[in-house]
């Protein structure tokens, strides 16, 4: 799974965002709704127009969770335990393995558009592995 080098690259990359994390969250969601319309079915109660307060608010939440996970990267199970319960018992989003793929792709595109060449193959690999690990943890309690 995540090597020491991967963890370092992720923390460094996240540090490079310089406060733009919240924008990244909102943008990732916007991109996801745009590229993968079925994901909108989980947000019938939201105003999904780009830049909406709800997308911004939710993007902020998602990024805060990822930030916390990155700070506790050695114990993702614990860091994401409540979110894991939430996704399994309340939200019941189609097993994260599938939906998170779309969020992972769109988050990575959002990061790549900001970091350009700095989103190197090594960073790309580390982030992809990280998002995969996050998805696994979120799916732990599904059944």
């Amino acid at each position, binding site marked *: 799974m995540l090597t020491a080098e991967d963890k370092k690259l992720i923390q460094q990359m996240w540090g490079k965002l310089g406060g733009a994390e919240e924008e990244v969250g909102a943008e990732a969601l916007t*991109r996801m709704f745009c590229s993968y319309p079925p994901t909108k079915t989980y947000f019938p109660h939201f105003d999904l127009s*780009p830049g909406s307060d709800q997308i911004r608010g939710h993007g902020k939440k998602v990024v805060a969770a990822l930030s916390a996970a990155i700070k506790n990267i050695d114990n993702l199970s614990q860091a994401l335990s409540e979110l894991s319960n939430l996704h399994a018992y309340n939200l019941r989003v189609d097993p994260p393995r599938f939906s998170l793929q779309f969020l992972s792709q769109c988050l990575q595109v959002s990061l790549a558009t*900001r970091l350009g060449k700095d989103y190197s193959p090594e960073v790309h690999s580390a982030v992809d592995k990280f998002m995969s690990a996050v998805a696994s943890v979120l799916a732990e309690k599904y059944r």
Partner: protein
Amino acid sequence: MVHWSAEEKQLISSVWAKVSVEECGAEALARLLIVYPWTQRFFSDFGNLSSPTAIIGNPKVRAHGKKVLTSFGEAIKNLDNLKGTYSQLSELHCDKLHVDPENFRLLGDILVIVLATHFTKDFTPACQATWQKLVGLVAHALARKYH
């Protein structure tokens, strides 16, 4: 029959016009081999794939990446007939190369990320959506002749 709006065609061609097929192809294939190392199973005769640096500098990877993306260019010229364009390649990937079609989806997603690193903020959500649609359809066309 797939429908492409005028806007989608414009988003595809305007991006493609600025793409270096050689550079982007090499990069996309290298990233596939780095991010999803199990894909190296298809390239055992490519020589040194032992590290990201080795993969990125490997001339066979670069050459093959260019080949793959050149073929993508053909798809872009034939957006209304992706199935026909990829018919033979589909058979080849099934019968001779034995490639699991899931890998086409992985490469497609990687290509989108490579484009994002090159075009940065110009790679808008609408642009990404169009390209995700395209890579998805290409992957589908390549899987079509599997049996």
